[in-house]
Structure formats: C-alpha cells, structure tokens
C-alpha cells in the first residue's frame, strides 16, 4: 500500500519572531565578520598530513613476494598485472621465470585489497596520494619503479597541517611536524 499523502501544517511565525530571527542571523554574521574562523587549506603551500594506514600509493617489497598472483586476481579494477621476469634460483643456480606484480595507476582505485590479501605482506601503502603524472604512460609502473616509494613533491614545498574537530571552535586547522608526531 503506498503511503498516504499527509498535509503538513507549518505554524506561521509572527512578525516579531521573524524580526528576531533576522536580527539573530545578522548578529551571527557580524560576530564571524570580526572573528573569522577560516579553515581554508591553501593547498600548494599547505597540505594535509595523512596518518599511517591511509590507503595511498602502493609499494612492492620484491624479496617477500612469492608470486602467488593473489593481488592481481583480487584487484577489482584490473590495475594489478603480473609480469614474467627471468631470475636465477639461489639454491640450484638455474635460470627460471618468476612472476611479479606491477600496477597501473590510471586504473587503480586505491581500495587496498591487494595489500590486504598479500600472504607475505610484500605490498604496503604510503600515506599520501596527491602526485601528478605528466602523461598516461608515466602512471604505469614497471617492476623497478614499483619497488620505490614515489616522490612526494608537495611535502618538499608545503607545510603539513591537520584538521581536528574542536568542541568549541568546530573544525580547526593545526600545524603538525613534518616527521612523526603532532605539534600544538
């Protein structure tokens, strides 16, 4: 049964309560005009320092990789691909083919499934994701570049900040240290 239409009745406000409401609104405006609580992030000069565990760019630790291909299989965006690399077996000294993952950041949605599924923790996140590539080809990593942490140019040029919710002031921007903990 479809819901019945209900006639909503809004009690009309009197003239004086309307005037009072207008005056209150203007008073709040004046208060903010003389005491502005700006929270704009001036981006290239400041950047938000993200916490550890943030799902940013992904880095491979090649020594831990056991070539199980779980990351490539679970990837919902098909960004992760396995490439075949000839390696020398350390025990027998024979030449053989081993598979390693590479990632295409044009497709990656930063879901972090590959990091979660990896049985040997060979993949990890870095806590930043604002990196600009100049071309589409640059965003496709090969095995060498997948093992390095990508360069974070914003951190070199800007100052790290973090937003916290203050009980009195609301959203507040605070300066933090570049490395490690917070600075009040």
């Amino acid at each position, binding site marked *: 049964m479809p819901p019945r239409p209900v006639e909503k009745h809004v009690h009309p406000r009197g*003239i004086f309560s*309307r005037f009072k409401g207008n005056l209150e*609104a*203007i008073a*709040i*405006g004046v208060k*903010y*005009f003389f005491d*502005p*609580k*700006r*929270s*704009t992030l*001036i981006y290239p000069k400041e950047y938000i320092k993200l916490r550890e565990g943030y799902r940013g760019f992904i880095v491979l630790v090649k020594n831990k990789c056991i070539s199980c291909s779980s990351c490539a299989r679970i990837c919902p965006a098909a960004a992760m691909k396995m490439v075949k690399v000839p390696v020398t077996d350390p025990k027998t000294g024979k030449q053989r083919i081993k598979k390693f993952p590479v990632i295409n950041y044009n497709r990656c949605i930063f879901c972090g499934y590959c990091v979660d599924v990896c049985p040997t923790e060979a993949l990890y996140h870095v806590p930043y994701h604002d990196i600009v590539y100049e071309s589409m080809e640059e965003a496709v990593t090969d095995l060498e570049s997948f093992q390095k942490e990508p360069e974070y140019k914003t951190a070199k040029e800007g100052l790290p900040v973090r937003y916290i919710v203050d009980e009195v002031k609301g959203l507040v921007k605070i300066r933090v240290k570049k490395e490690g903990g917070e600075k009040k």
Partner: protein
Amino acid sequence: MTGWVEAIIKIIEWPPLWQLVVLGLIAPLAVVIYILWFERKTAARVQRRIGPYHVSPRIAGGLQLLADLIRYSFQEVIIPKTVDKAAFISAPLIALILSILPVVAIPFTDVPKWFPLPMDYSLILALALVTLSPLFIIVAGWASNNKFAIIGGMREAYLIVSYEIIAILSFLAATAMTGTYNLVDIVHAQTGWKWFIVLNPLAFFTAFVGVLLSTSGFPFEIAESEHEVVAGAFTEYSGLMYGINMGAAYLKRMIYSLLLTVVFLGGWYPLKPGEGFIWGYLAPSIVIFIKATILMMIFSFFRAVYGRYRLDQAIEIAWKILFPLTVIAFGLGLLEAYYGII
C-alpha cells in the same frame, strides 16, 4: 599654457559635467569595484573561506576585480540569431544610463551655483528616474527569446509592482515631514544631528529594504537567482554586455544609497558647504560618498548572512509587512510635522 589649465578646470567645475561624469559615473564605478571586492571578501570571511587571494596576495586579492573587469571587456560579445537585435543591444545600455541619470537630481551642495538642475522638485524627479530602469530589464528578458530570460523578466515585473510603492512612499515620508520636494531643503531640515534616520527610523528601514528589493540584493536576489533561472533576464548576454547588466544593478544601488544618504543620513552634514569649489562642492560630495559607501557595505554584508527568499515570500513580505510599515512611517512623519518636531 596657464590659460589651458584654467579652461580645463573651468570645464571640470561645470556642474553638469562634474555631477554626471565624475560624480555620476567615475566615482560610483570606483565605489562599485571596491564594493564588489568587499562583498566577496566579506562573504568569504563570514563563511570561513578566504575569498579572492591569488591575484595579489599582498593586498588581499584587491586586483581580482580589475582582472575580472579586463576579462569581461575582452570577451567576445555573442548575439544569438534568435534575439530581437535592436532591443537586445539597446535595453541594457538604456538601463545603465537610466540608473546613473538620477544623480542629476541629487544635490551635493547647497550653493545654487553648483546645481545642475533647479532643485525645486528634485526628490520627485530622482524617484521617477530611478524607477524607470527596471522596465528595460524586462525588455532585455523579452528580447532575449529565452525561457530563463523571460521568467527572470517576469519576476522582475512582479518585484517592481511590490517594491516600487514601498520605496517611493518611504522616501516621500521625508516630504511629509518637511513639506517640500526640494532635497536641499530636506537636508537643511536635518541640521544639528536631527537626521531623519533618528526622527523616522521606520521610514529608513522600509526604504532600506525597498532598495534591497529593487536592486536584487540578498535576500531578495530573485530575478537573477542563479540556481533557478541561470542569470534571469541576462542569461543570453555575454562579455561586456553582461558586465554592463551586472554593473547597472550595483550602480543603481549606489545611486539609491546616495539618495538615502541625502534624505535620511543628513546629506553633507556635519560639514557645512563653504566658499569656492573645494569647500563648496568637492568636500560635501566626498562626505556624501563616504556615507553612501558605508551604506553599500551594509547592503553587501547581507550577502554573507542571508539565503534567498522565494518570489512569493518576497512579495508577501512586501505587501503584508513592509507596506503597512511604510504607511505607518508616512503617518509618523506627518505627526512629527504636525507637532513641530522637525
């Protein structure tokens, strides 16, 4: 050589030129550019943003408006094939001229030598000229042959019907108090801090809201509300023509502010016009412009606070609340005149 300089000074001092070109066009344009910057900065300040910044960070983005002006000036003016060309081009220009023209009827001094027109019926003349320009906004909307433009023009028409009587009646409350249409006499009646804003605050309030309604300032920015009718009657305009349209509303608000200053805020008082061009004409005009600029700043502050009323809400406010208040203000003026307070 000195003859040339004297001749140029004589031409500048000539009241029609000084009042129409310098006080009527250049000075309000400068004030409007400052006010646009102030409006954006104030809205940003109240809404916890920064506002224009990156064009000139040292002077808080002060050159942003100049950059916008240059952009509007050099943008291509597109005239669509479907519009009524003559009306489409002429309507905003006439609206701009008509919104500046009332300045001829506003006295900036009480020395009769500097009046561009005889000031006997100046209040009536200024109000009549001020209320002409919205007609051409409707013409612009109609000529654009666009549904948003026509809806915007019709909204403007609705608003004219509701605000015009309020604005005119509340200005005429000053006439009820002094018994004259002469703006110079109205200013003279306000000597010794007997400003009409103190004697009749109700009339000032209704005139203030009437000006907000007529120049589509917040919270009555209904005729060109962006979320509903793109840019109202100015939807089809581009480049400099759009800039003219937007500037005309601000210039009209500036002229209204000058009128409010003369009628309610004591005109050139506390300064008394003296002898010569500088003390007799320049200094009083500067005083009036400073007061009008403060009024403009209050007008633009509302942008930061208010949302937008619906059309029916605005008309309801105009007819059910403001119109009775205006009549009461008019009666208050008559009573004050009867008991000789003025």
